[in-house]
């Protein structure tokens, strides 16, 4: 009931009326039912065609709707009689209805069907069988997820669902993940799919308020993947349009585990313990190589041989001694100090069960996942309670509630104070210790030991996600469901850079405490009507949701500490505070839809949603999102059955619909002035935002054409989808002319398209009882294109990435290096306008971060008690900008303040050398370009890779053996991730990206000081009591 309490605070006093009115409606309308006593008991036995008994078949008696399940001997008994009808349903088998005609003893034989088509999927606001579904979606079951690695469930989806492109940005547990479902439809209004857990629309944007240099956290890591029963990925417009303004980027619906009614109480314990280590790191030059390059640069830039910096110490010129010959220089490795073998563990305990009225699931988890790089730890405690209760035959209530606490230790990775700048970018030439044994801290980046000893950066998350629902079957076929949800997310950051660290040096210690709270309330009311008329089936639904989000952030900073011993802001000489106040937004929605199905063969869907968002100007507040779909189960036609009997299923489907996106800043439509523009410590205000009262939804139209088939006794099943998405009125932060005094304004400008195909083939080559093999392969292709953009503009602080009409997003804007002139050793760049000079006009788009295709190949084997499965993930054609190399092939221009890559050793040295690394020099070339420190396409590399994501081997002990010690099932297993990666990429890991601190990731495929993905080996035990 705590959710109700929370809800009562949603509305101001004026509207408490709304709330009480609703409660009144709810609690005055519970029907009171009595069971009809004039009935006999019907008994029966259920088997498959081979005569094997079937356990767990749901038996429903109509019209009274009594329900039971068959036991382990396939037996059932249920009250019924006369002209009653029994309906038998079991996943994987065709439904059967039997008219009793006074029979009391039955033998029911259920025919197996293609399991996938009979799965019940949750599409929008109704549940339906996959066979009657006209849209495109993919279901990922718990068994597929548990073997995968990743603190957050979305990391684990990689390679499992066609059309879903997933790349965790780094190897840090709980770090951000790039998720795109069927491409990118937006630039500035967010591209994350909508995540819904047990009816709760959850926040998926990082609440980090303090930058941590190139990485951000993933709020979905607050959710324990072990609690998940299944994940439904909704892709096409017919599935997503019912989410209207939230649906343009696809919808991912997560269902958590629930207790089963009338089942025994089960206790499940799953413990795993493992080790993580790096697979590959960076190839840095040695100290002698670094010195050699510096000498060469000195000479090439006109220095005299006598004055070369690395000459014998004895060669004193003008009173300055040499630094020693290159070969006398030491090589000092920092990576070995900063990387570690991390010991990771996760323990899950769950209890589930139920009787005929109540079912429950209670789960608890502890997970400790330190990263392979030091100072990066992730720890999570989570609890879940899912409860279902039938008050009577018509009224059921339930809750789904989870609470999680996370604790992170963080460190900057890729900037001045970054741990990987210390590790990768400090020259190996520079000693770590001074001659007197103290730490050498005269480096550009922190000394590794100083960093390890002084870093103090933690973040604590607390998250409650709760849902209460009540479902009332008003009359058979007509039900009403009310659902109330809350996602309350607290995030506290506590950071102290003391004066020993580079970040704290200038300010004599700098500390920040940040508190962020993000709350979303949702109330949802839904009417569902299902009716069979002979061979016609009609399903209608009508609903309403209200959503409100409140966001608040407070930051407190202190600088100038008396000494490093003082760590709290109270002791800082200068303190400042920042408070956003509560920023609220609301969304009001009405929606409805109908599904008509004839003979379970022809299906038509229509949906409509209307949304009103507080984020838009009043005149454009409402948006309307319709969709429609059609599917035809061809294989059910008699001419196919008779002539093409090898076909078990063949379904053709198509859908079209419109979805929206409103994920922009609140108040983006208003012209605003901000405070805090102070002078002389007096308050000052300044224009902060140029309003646009015509701001409206970004709209995406999507067409889907799909085919699903299974054949040869379900030996193979295939699924193929083609989609075409077209987004108009892009919510775009458009550069304003500088003379206006603003750098950008938010406008509905530009159009973008995504077209793609998805293919999945599943084979079950061996289906025996002793040996089984299932194999699944999926591959996807997406082509993104900015169709219309009046003016092109750059993203990211170094302008590497540019949005330009006729090119896809994530395009790199660079000077294209054609070759290195074998005679001069200078890099030759493409002179686009042929003016003999290399100017900004010659900079153009030379590639993008999109893969041509990506996918997964998954195999499951079981032989007697042994099971084995593995997943290979691949991505082909994506470009990665290797920013580490950009810095590290500096050819001496950054002297001893920056490390060199070993690739410098294949530089041009004498006429005739054929190489891609030009002559070392700091001087500009005659055409105005530079060989080094230049935005050259040389650093844009092919980031294609094939990776063995996961291998799991398990052994399940004989039940007879374990039952003696009271254990139902006992399985031990070992699990390895990232055992091999095949790639031409020269960095440590092709699957990396500089995560921006904002949700709008407009940059992809940028590698700068990012920890690579770990190779992990885990051992686990799973016991059910």
């Amino acid at each position: 009931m705590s959710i109700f309490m929370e809800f009562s605070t949603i509305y101001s006093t004026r509207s408490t009326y709304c709330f009480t009115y609703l409660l009144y409606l709810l609690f005055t309308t519970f029907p009171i039912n009595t069971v009809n006593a004039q009935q006999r008991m019907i008994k029966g036995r259920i088997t498959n065609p081979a005569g094997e008994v079937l356990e767990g078949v749901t038996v429903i008696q109509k019209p009274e709707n009594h329900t039971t399940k068959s036991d382990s001997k396939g037996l059932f008994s249920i009250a019924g009689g006369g002209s009653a009808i029994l309906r038998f349903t079991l996943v994987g088998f065709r439904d059967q209805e039997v008219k009793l005609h006074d029979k009391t003893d039955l033998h029911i034989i259920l025919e197996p069907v293609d399991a996938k088509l009979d799965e019940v999927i949750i599409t929008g606001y109704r549940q339906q069988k996959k066979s009657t579904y006209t849209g495109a979606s993919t279901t990922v079951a718990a068994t597929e997820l548990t073997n995968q690695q990743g603190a957050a469930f979305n990391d684990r989806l990689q390679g499992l669902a066609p059309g879903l492109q997933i790349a965790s940005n780094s190897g840090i547990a709980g770090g951000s993940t790039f998720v795109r479902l069927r491409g990118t439809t937006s630039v500035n209004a967010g591209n994350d799919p909508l995540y819904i857990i047990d009816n709760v629309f959850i926040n998926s944007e990082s609440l980090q308020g303090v930058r941590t240099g190139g990485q951000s956290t993933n709020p979905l890591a607050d959710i324990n993947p072990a609690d998940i029963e299944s994940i439904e990925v909704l892709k096409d417009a017919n599935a997503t349009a019912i989410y209207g303004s939230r649906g343009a980027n696809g919808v991912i619906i997560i269902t958590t585990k629930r207790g089963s009614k009338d089942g025994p109480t089960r206790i499940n314990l799953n413990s795993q313990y493992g080790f993580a280590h790096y697979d590959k790191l960076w190839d840095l030059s040695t100290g002698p190589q670094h010195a050699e390059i510096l000498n060469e640069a000195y000479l090439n830039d006109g220095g005299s041989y006598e004055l070369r910096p690395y000459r014998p110490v004895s060669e004193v010129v003008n009173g300055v001694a040499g630094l020693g010959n290159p070969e006398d220089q030491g090589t000092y490795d920092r990576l070995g100090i900063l990387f570690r073998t991390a010991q990771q563990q996760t323990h899950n305990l769950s209890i589930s069960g139920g009787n005929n009225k109540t079912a429950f699931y209670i789960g608890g988890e502890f997970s400790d996942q330190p990263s392979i790089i030091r100072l990066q730890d992730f720890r999570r405690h989570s609890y879940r309670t899912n409860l279902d209760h039938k008050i009577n035959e018509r009224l059921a209530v339930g809750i789904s509630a989870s609470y999680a606490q996370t604790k992170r230790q963080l460190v900057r990775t890729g900037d001045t104070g970054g741990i990987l700048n210390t590790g990768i970018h400090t020259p190996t030439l520079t000693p770590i210790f001074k001659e007197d044994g103290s730490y050498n801290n005269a480096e550009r980046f922190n000394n590794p030991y100083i960093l390890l000893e002084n870093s103090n950066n933690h973040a604590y998350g607390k998250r409650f996600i709760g849902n209460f629902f009540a479902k009332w079957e008003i009359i058979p076929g007509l039900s009403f469901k009310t659902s109330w949800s809350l996602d309350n997310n607290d995030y506290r950051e506590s950071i102290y850079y003391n004066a020993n660290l580079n970040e704290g040096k200038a300010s004599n210690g700098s500390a920040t405490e940040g508190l962020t709270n993000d709350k979303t309330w949702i109330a949802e009311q839904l009417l569902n009507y299902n009716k069979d008329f002979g061979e016609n089936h009609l399903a209608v639904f009508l609903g309403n949701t209200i959503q409100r989000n409140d966001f608040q952030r407070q930051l407190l900073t202190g600088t100038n500490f008396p000494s490093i011993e003082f760590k709290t802001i109270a002791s800082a000489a200068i303190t400042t505070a920042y408070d956003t106040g509560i920023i609220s937004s609301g969304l009001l929605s009405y929606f409805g839809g109908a599904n008509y199905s004839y003979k379970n063969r022809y299906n038509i869907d229509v949906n409509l949603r209307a949304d009103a968002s507080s984020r838009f100007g009043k005149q454009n507040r409402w948006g309307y999102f319709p969709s429609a779909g059609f599917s035809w189960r061809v294989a059910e036609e008699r001419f196919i059955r008779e002539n093409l009997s090898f076909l078990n299923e063949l379904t053709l489907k198509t859908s079209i619909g419109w979805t929206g996106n409103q994920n922009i800043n609140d108040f983006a439509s208003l012209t605003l002035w901000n405070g805090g523009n102070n002078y002389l410590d007096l308050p000052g205000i300044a224009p902060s935002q140029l309003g646009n009262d015509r701001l409206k939804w970004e709209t995406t139209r999507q067409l889907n054409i799909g085919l699903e088939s299974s054949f040869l006794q379900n030996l193979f099943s295939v699924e193929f989808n083609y989609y075409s998405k077209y987004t108009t009125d892009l919510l775009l932060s458009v550069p304003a002319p500088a003379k206006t005094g603003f750098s950008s304004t938010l406008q509905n400008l530009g159009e973008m398209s995504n077209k793609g195909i998805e293919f999945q083939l599943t084979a079950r080559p061996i289906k025996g009882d002793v040996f089984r093999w299932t194999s699944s392969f999926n591959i996807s292709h997406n082509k993104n294109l900015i169709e219309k953009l009046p003016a092109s503009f750059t993203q990211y602080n170094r302008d590497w990435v540019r949005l330009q009409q006729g090119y896809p997003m994530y395009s790199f804007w660079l000077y294209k290096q054609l070759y290195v002139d074998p005679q001069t050793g200078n890099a030759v760049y493409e002179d686009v306008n042929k003016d003999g000079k290399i100017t900004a006009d010659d900079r153009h788009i030379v590639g993008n971060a999109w893969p041509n295709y990506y996918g997964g190949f998954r195999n499951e084997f079981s032989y007697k008690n042994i099971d084995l499965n593995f997943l290979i993930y691949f991505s082909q054609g994506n470009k990665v900008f290797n920013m580490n190399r950009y810095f590290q092939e500096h050819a001496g221009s950054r002297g001893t303040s920056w490390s060199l890559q070993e690739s410098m050793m294949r530089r041009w040295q004498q006429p005739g050398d054929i190489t891609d690394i030009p002559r070392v020099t700091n001087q500009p070339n005659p055409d105005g370009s530079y060989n080094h420190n230049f935005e050259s396409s040389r650093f844009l590399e092919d980031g294609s890779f094939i990776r063995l994501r996961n291998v799991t081997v398990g052994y399940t002990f004989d039940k007879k053996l374990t039952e003696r010690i009271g254990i139902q099932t006992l399985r031990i297993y070992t699990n390895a991730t990232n055992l091999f990666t095949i790639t031409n990429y020269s960095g440590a890991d092709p699957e990396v990206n500089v995560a921006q601190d904002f949700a709008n990731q407009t940059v992809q495929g940028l590698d700068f000081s990012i920890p690579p993905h770990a190779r992990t080996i885990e051992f686990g035990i799973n016991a059910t009591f």
Partner: protein
Amino acid sequence: MILAMNLFLYKRTKTFLFALSITLLFTHCEKDLLDFNPTESISDEFAIVDGKSAETALLGVYNKLQSSSYYGGDGYQAAAYLSGGDLLWVGTLNYYATFINHTYRADNRVITDAWYAIFRAVNGANHIIAKVPSLSTGITEQQKKQLVGEAYFLRALAYFDLARAWGNVPIVLQPTNTVNDANGIRQSTQGLVYDQVLADLNAAEALLDESINRNRATKNTVYALKARLHLYRKQWQEAEDFASRIINQSNQYNLIDWQTFINTKNSNESIFELAFSTLNTSAHFGSWSSISYRNQFAPNRALYELTQSAQTGGERKLLISDNSSTAIPNYFVQHLYWRTTNDNPTYILRVAEQYLIRAEARAQLNKLNDAIADLNAVRTRAKTALFQSNSQEAILRAIEDERRVEFALEPHRWFDLIRTERASTLAGATDHSKWIFPIPYNDIAADPDLVQNPGY
């Protein structure tokens, strides 16, 4: 009642009423759900409504001057420091390096950010100039004159800085209310922009008092900027006159010793000193190299030696120290912006400049002895030997050299070398098209009225 309601709703034919009730229910709530106001910001119509709010809006313009991309210690100043040829780039961001050998391109981030930052100050001033004169409540006439006068000065300074750096810039004199407001405004030539600067300075001069406030614009600040404007425009007599108006107020504006000047905020040396505080910090200390950390730029050996020599530097040796080691050669550290608490002021207009403006103007007017007297005033303060010569050319060269060391850590050298057309000889900028910066590539893409400067 409950039972009746129950039965009523339980009837199949009436179920639609239930749905209807729910729909109606939430229609009631629409206002609470969809109408929110920002808590951090205010709408434009409430921004400037009386004297108090107009004052905050004016302080906001000074705040725009403080942008690190403008006068806050990096950006515009960095571009000038580095182009002047006396600095080393020792940082991570290669676009700083291009200033040293004048190979900056239109995609240079420093240039782009400075350009946008200055126009932000212009827009702030335009709001004051357009709105304050018509305010009717809560403001006195005197207050109006003060606020509008300061805004005119700030706009003049912004356009002066735009004109000397980019040459051809669009002149926008109205506040921006929609993104299309300035459509059609094309660039004016440098001369026309300077004319606008003078017009604004004249307006400011008429409105402001001749009071002393070293952190905000007064009539004296206007005189000092006018002296510099006329010097840039080679209007020697006017330059001499306006510089004299400052120099003559010797009880308020005089040359104090270097140690005191470096250590004291708002000393008598300052005419316009952009103030920073520990709550409102400057980027200056951080963007230069310090003893503990090498950031983007640092003085080079030549400048270091110039300041250390008793002949040329004198007391100005305090400005730079040598922190080099065998491991890091050429590691020089500046000490003008020395406060680690980052409340270092930016010296925009100061007395020594007025002396050197007047010296140069007088030399050009052939008042050689007066010119030498002004030059020697600066040299005396630095405790370097007095300069003597009868040659106009030698005196002008001596003033040029004096400015180099006197403003070793202030952004004058580059603009001086361009206005005297000596940048190719002394800063190696042989390509004259590089004497003005490129119009940012991104702004040309955003603004169809803009034309790129020749040579880019």
